[in-house]
């Protein structure tokens, strides 16, 4: 229709309206304004359904199904864990790319870059905390996703291969998180990864183990080459692998549909393509609204936690010459650390986890039980719960509390003023540490309440270890605080004791504390904000 003809039929205003409608329909990829309005009002679509057009017009919507079975859209059916995993991956991708701007993977620069990111980049700490929190949440959510799938038996035919790719995604997620661990190049990172890669060394036969270890570290010990390799794994290789398997996984999910509750679906049934018309929930607008509101809610939660409650740890710079008192794996590898305490490195570190992984991936091909109902799957569910409990027990054994303890005086000082992080002595701060000699066997008036509490903890720790260790008797602790330099105090911890034979022992350890120092537990808004809230409530109580 020519412009003149349109002009004649509709008039100038009508033509503008038609033009606007046309633009709107293009932007929405096929939904005219009238239909959009009906959508917002919750009215049913016309026939044939005009709301399907965007699915064939746009790439991102064409990979989404046009409708779901009503039973799977309930939140408690899947808890949206798969979607959350995907969302977190893209969140990590965005924050990760931004963080790459201020980071160079060399031992000379990596840690300095962390300091610069924290002290010289607006939103630098926020980005780092969000990236770290997102990574830990991703591991947790991917694991929960797997547990849910196992408990509802959703891996059964025709979804066996979906499960298999899911296990690969879980492993890639774990490695992705772990490879990011080394990048800050602090003590925490260096020693966790040293232990992690030393497990690769235990792969039998010896020549293979050594080669794998050499490939991962780039040298017999972790150094510049190892850092570069972990960096490339973290930012390139593993994300690419994850994207590849994600699309395989997702294609299978759409292809077979999300499994219905066991009561509504028989194993082997193709439910995705046979949804009764009255049970269909269309993606546009119902599922889309639901997902958008859910993801904005989740984002808000994540940001609020990042801003107020979470801080990514940053210990001292990596020092290959100094092994920390307690090296800790990331929490999702506590179970492995626990396992390593029972058996040797080859069995507990390589063979057992390897067998577990193969078993996990092969579950759908080993489980011939034709039912997904809970009452028919007692063996599977009980063994799942047993395996989960085992993991929790092993994890507990892997925590630092269960760790091999050092000598009592070392542990006492570590408790009050740890090698890494804050601890009670640094927490009360420079100003609250009074100069002088303070002993645990004296009852004196302390200059301030905070310091009195610290000395109380010192006394309690000394008492506790005397009860625990027969070789640690009549222990006396002494804390000498002196002014070493302007705005720098020196804390000398000195502990004497007698062992079971009555022979005396002594231990001393010195630390310094600068007036301006803050340790990672005290970083940023969280600390100040909590302090602010505390002050607010204290002033309320006084009134």
């Amino acid at each position, binding site marked *: 229709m020519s412009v003149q003809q349109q002009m004649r039929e509709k008039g100038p205003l009508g033509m503008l309206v038609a033009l606007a409608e046309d633009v709107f329909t293009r932007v929405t990829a096929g939904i005219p304004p009238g239909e959009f309005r009906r959508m917002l009002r*919750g009215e049913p679509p016309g026939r044939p359904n005009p709301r399907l057009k965007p699915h064939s017009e746009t790439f991102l919507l064409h990979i989404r199904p046009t409708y779901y079975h009503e039973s799977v*859209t309930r939140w408690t059916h899947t808890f949206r864990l798969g979607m959350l995993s995907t969302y977190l991956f893209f969140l990590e991708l965005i924050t990760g790319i931004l963080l790459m701007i201020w980071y160079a993977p060399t031992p000379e620069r990596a840690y300095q870059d962390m300091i610069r990111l924290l002290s010289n980049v607006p939103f630098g700490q926020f980005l780092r905390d969000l990236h770290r929190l997102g990574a830990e949440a991703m591991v947790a959510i991917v694991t929960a996703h797997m547990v849910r799938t196992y408990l509802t038996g959703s891996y059964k035919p025709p979804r066996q291969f979906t499960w298999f790719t899911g296990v690969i995604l879980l492993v890639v997620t774990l490695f992705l998180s772990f490879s990011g661990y080394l990048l800050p190049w602090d003590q925490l990172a260096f020693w966790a990864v040293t232990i992690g890669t030393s497990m690769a060394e235990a792969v039998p036969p010896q020549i293979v183990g050594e080669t794998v270890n050499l490939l991962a570290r780039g040298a017999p010990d972790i150094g510049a080459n190892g850092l570069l390799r972990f960096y490339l794994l973290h930012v390139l290789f593993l994300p690419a692998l994850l994207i590849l398997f994600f699309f395989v996984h997702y294609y299978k999910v759409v292809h077979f549909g999300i499994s219905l*509750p066991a009561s509504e679906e028989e194993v082997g049934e193709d439910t995705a393509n046979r949804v009764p018309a009255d049970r269909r929930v269309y993606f546009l607008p119902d599922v889309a609204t639901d997902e958008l509101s859910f993801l*904005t809610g989740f*984002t808000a939660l994540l940001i609020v936690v990042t*801003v107020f409650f979470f801080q990514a740890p940053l210990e001292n710079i990596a020092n290959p010459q100094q092994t920390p008192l307690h090296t800790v794996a990331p929490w999702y590898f506590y179970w492995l650390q626990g396992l390593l305490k029972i058996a040797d490195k080859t069995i507990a570190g390589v063979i057992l986890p390897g067998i577990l992984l193969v078993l996990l991936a092969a579950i759908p091909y080993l489980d011939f039980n034709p039912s997904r109902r809970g009452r028919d799957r007692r063996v599977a569910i009980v063994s799942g719960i047993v395996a989960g409990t085992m993991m929790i027990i092993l994890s507990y054994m892997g925590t630092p509390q269960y760790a091999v303890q050092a000598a009592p005086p070392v542990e006492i000082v570590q408790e009050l003023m740890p090698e890494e992080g804050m601890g009670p002595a640094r927490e009360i701060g420079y100003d609250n540490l009074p100069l002088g000699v303070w002993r645990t066997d004296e009852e004196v008036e302390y200059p301030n309440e905070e310091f009195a509490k610290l000395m109380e903890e010192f006394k309690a720790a000394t008492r506790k270890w005397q009860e625990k260790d027969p070789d640690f008797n009549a222990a006396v602790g002494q804390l000498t605080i002196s002014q070493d330099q302007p*705005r720098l105090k020196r804390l000398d911890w000195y502990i004497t004791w007698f062992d079971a034979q009555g022979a005396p022992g002594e231990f001393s350890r010195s630390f310094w504390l*600068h007036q301006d*120092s803050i340790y990672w537990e005290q970083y940023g808004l969280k600390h100040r904000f909590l302090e602010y809230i505390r002050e607010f409530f204290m002033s309320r109580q006084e009134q």
Partner: protein
Amino acid sequence: MQGIYIKSPILKILIGILATLITIGAILLVAFTEEIRMEEQAASWEGRSIENGAALYATACASCHGVDGKGASGPALNSYYFFTDTGRIQDVEFPGSLRQYVKLTIAAGRPSKQQSQWPVRMPTWGADYGGPYRDDQIEEIVDYVMNWRESALAQTPYEDPWRCFEDVPTPCDEQGFVGLLKRVGLTPEEYLAGLPAEAQPTPPPARPAELLFTEMGCNGCHALTKANAAGAVGPDLDPLPQVAGERIPGMSPEEYVYESIVNPDAYIVEGFPPGVMPTNYAQRMSEEEIRSLVDWLLQP
């Protein structure tokens, strides 16, 4: 099983809007406090560096340069002459800043013991020059040493613990705070008299002799039972009350001990080398303190 889910699209949209507002609010809160946070962080990392430097100094440097940086068998660092712009840095004609001079000296050490009166050559500490410490550790030690600036520049001419470097062109009597004053034709008394009343130094209270014995580092080199000291570098001080009067004919025990503290190389006990004991104790202790230390040492 019915399950829990929100059905109303209006409620969902409201939740979405509320969540977006909360997100924006939290990010704005960060934005408004970001300036303060970055300042705090920058100050903190300087402080952390000084803390780490202090630990390294205590293990590597304190034995020669003194726990308080006022020198022992090595030169003083916590010194007015060392920190002031017209002092050491100008006399050695180093083209860079004092910080760079300190860093270079720590990292590379002194290349040779030739033409030096110090008993021990400054070792190389930086890994680049064959020493044990990485560059970031050297930086930390430098941060710690430079942190004395404030206290060093607050020293009076008498308090400056600087000991002469014999191998530089500047003559000995023109080094140290007193030497700097001499160059402009002032005596310390004239300088102090010229200061306004509020800038006049107040003499600190005299320290007890027992404390001086450890604070001045005597226990590091001398043995003395009553002070739990077992140093073997210098003469044993336990027999001092008996032998002090017989060492130099015509000299009272008090005079002998006093002279040996203030001017250690005046009389050398046989079997010990000269030039080891620091010569700046007269500057580091008040007259009253030295007298009390002499009395305490002579008490059996």
